[in-house]
């Protein structure tokens, strides 16, 4: 299968959140049911829940700012979910191989939840701060990752991801990655012609190429927390490329070195010693010889 991508055009999005709801429905993710849930933490925005969480894989972000233009205001709608990176840092740090690129070659980062050991390394490695986990707690067992899977279960049956299927204004699309990139460039050119000079294709080269291609209508600051230049932390390389080989070398080295000393000490024998505390003589008990005399007057001890 060729590489595929989800396409999102923030300039067509009406922020209806049909995508957010259909993602939850398809993936059977619950929403809170306690009375007036979320009321006390309401921050006066349409962005609810405020961020991704263990039961929410996709949210639309909202940001407004004043501007001197025909509308007097910019209101940016962003699509926040896993970006399905080619150079996925989460895949690199995952100890159990739970996170991996789809074996059919679509480029989507999927996971085998049975293999998740709940270490949450993926979350600290991700430059977009996407992976979330359920079952997080002090005892450590049963913690499992949750993130967008590009509805790989639907894609494998020639269907579009749930979010794409729900989009009424056609802001979301899905298909061959190169085609989605071409479509994005066409749209960004059209936006620039209309005066949206900061319009940008986001995802062509970032992190080796994302499998979510965004058309950003405004500059990236209107799509917080989307980073301008997403990059893997250099510590990820240290952890995955340096620490483990170093550990292996250290282990092998020390075992090897100690084994050498053992081999070289084969046949070691020493005579027993005895200390005559009256005469301050150290005596070899086999030969009876004084091997050392402690000269107390001279300050020896």
């Amino acid at each position, binding site marked *: 299968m060729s590489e595929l991508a989800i396409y999102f055009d923030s300039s067509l999005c009406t922020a209806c959140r049909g995508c957010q709801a259909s993602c939850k429905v398809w993936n059977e993710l619950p929403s809170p049911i306690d009375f007036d849930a*979320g009321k006390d933490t309401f921050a006066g925005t349409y962005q609810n829940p405020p961020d991704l969480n263990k039961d929410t894989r996709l949210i639309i972000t909202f940001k407004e700012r004043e501007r001197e233009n025909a509308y007097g205001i910019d209101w940016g709608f962003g699509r926040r979910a896993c970006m399905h990176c080619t150079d996925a840092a989460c895949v690199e740090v995952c100890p159990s191989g739970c996170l991996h690129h789809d074996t059919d070659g679509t480029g989507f980062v999927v996971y085998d939840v049975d293999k998740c050991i709940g270490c949450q390394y993926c979350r600290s490695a991700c430059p977009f701060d996407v992976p979330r986990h359920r079952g997080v707690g002090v005892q450590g067992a049963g913690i499992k990752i949750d993130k967008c899977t590009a509805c790989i279960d639907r894609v494998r049956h020639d269907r579009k991801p749930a979010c794409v299927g729900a989009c009424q204004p056609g802001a979301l699309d899905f298909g061959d990655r190169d085609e989605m990139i071409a479509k994005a460039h066409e749209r960004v050119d059209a936006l620039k012609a209309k005066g949206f000079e900061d319009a940008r294709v986001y995802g062509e080269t970032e992190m080796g190429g994302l499998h979510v291609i965004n058309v950003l209508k405004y500059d990236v600051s209107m799509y917080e927390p989307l980073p301008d230049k997403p990059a893997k932390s250099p510590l990820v390389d240290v952890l995955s490329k340096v620490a483990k080989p170093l550990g292996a070398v250290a282990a092998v080295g020390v075992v090897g070195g100690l084994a050498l000393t053992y081999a070289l000490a084969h046949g070691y024998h020493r005579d027993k010693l005895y200390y005559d505390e009256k005469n301050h003589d150290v005596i070899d008990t086999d030969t009876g010889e004084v091997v050392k005399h402690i000269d107390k007057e001279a300050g020896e001890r």
Partner: protein
Amino acid sequence: MIKGYWFFGQNPLQSLGNSKYLRNVIANLDWLVFDDMYMTETASFWDAPDMRDKASEINTECYFLPIASLFEKNGTVINSGRVMQWRYQAIEPRGDSKWDLEAIWLVHQRLRQLYEEEGGALPDPILNAKWDYAGDDGKPDMRKVAWELNGYSTYGATEDFENGTPKLLDGYSKLKADGSTASGVWIYTGYYGNPDAPFDPAQQNVGRRLRDDPDGLNIFPKWAFSWPANRRILYNRASCDMDGKPWREGLAPVEWDGEKWVTNDVPDFVASKTDSDGNTVAVEPNNKAFFMNWEQNARLFASTLNDMPLPEHYEPFESPTENLLNGAGSNPAMLFNSYDSNKKGTSGTYPIVATTYSFTEHWSSGAETHNAPVLNEMMPTQYCELPTELAQEKGIENGDDVRIFNDRGSIVVKAMVTKRITPLTVNGSKQYTIGIVHDWGWANVYTHGDITNDLVPGVGDPNSFIAENKAFLVDIEKA
């Protein structure tokens, strides 16, 4: 003298204007019946936060009838595009809940019985009502109701209904004014008009599911039925010019090809006629595009509206400014504006203009949609949007509780301070507007809010009776 009221799946004590006044006034009725799937604000009006402490003093006998949802019954659904679609029952109604029709059925039968036993004033319309729509199980059969609404030949109709052989009519042109036909709704005629399959909705127009889209016009003429006569686009003659040529190439539902009208939609004008020899001939393009008018032409003025003939600018019932165009101020034909209960306010006391609207993710009063946790998660609380300048003046911050009030009511909601609503300049003065969402109430099990319509005046549009939810006066303060 009204003694009681029967609500069917409606929540007017949440959605009508001046709702606080209404819920207090409705307590004067002897009895109320609520047909609903959910305990709505209407069904539990006595439990409103401002009434529950005095609920024991209310003498209204209230009955709540649990009603089946649309998946638990057969029938038709219709949308604002006039498209009617037959829907099939998927599961049995839960517990003791019944179809609306069944509820009415049982009451009607009981009424008949009482009239027969005890007599009473004017028994004839009750005892002689045509009510032969029972299925084999004694319960109402929606298909028989469909025959009645569609229209049929009345000769032998009593036996026809009994035997299941109604002589259904396929269009309203078959309806006569001489008693030989009957139809419940003439605009529906043809929706269930196939006499060869009276018990199979799939073989009726209303049950069609064909996706044919001739010429890619998105008309889908064989998907269900559109009243009247399956006409999908009204006044479709106006899609072409005087010569019958489409205003936009490739987008007209009808088109004159030089000899006849090519119709991808049922023409809403006289496209053909029978000549003196009995042949059907095409009517050449003319200026007659609106055949519901006797002269079939467009008019510059309206003759059927209560505030006709010409459009005019009127200020709302409560306005912060004077009407510069019309000395009457607000619409003189406005309904109920003389009622004291509307407690008209002035901008001296209530300087802020409020408007109300829906939150996209909720449907109407929210009685149904608040039961979907995913929708509640998207907006966990009732809110109002107000300009940053107004918020600064009042010391209100984003997420604060605010009180919005006038002489009709007072509500507390969360503030959403935004640059998207800017102060207006009206007649030279700065005027603040705020927007309040209305889809909340006290009755849901997952969320609660106040009834925004407590603030709205209960006046009515002269033609549609709709209240003035979109412009009225309030004041706001941090709660």
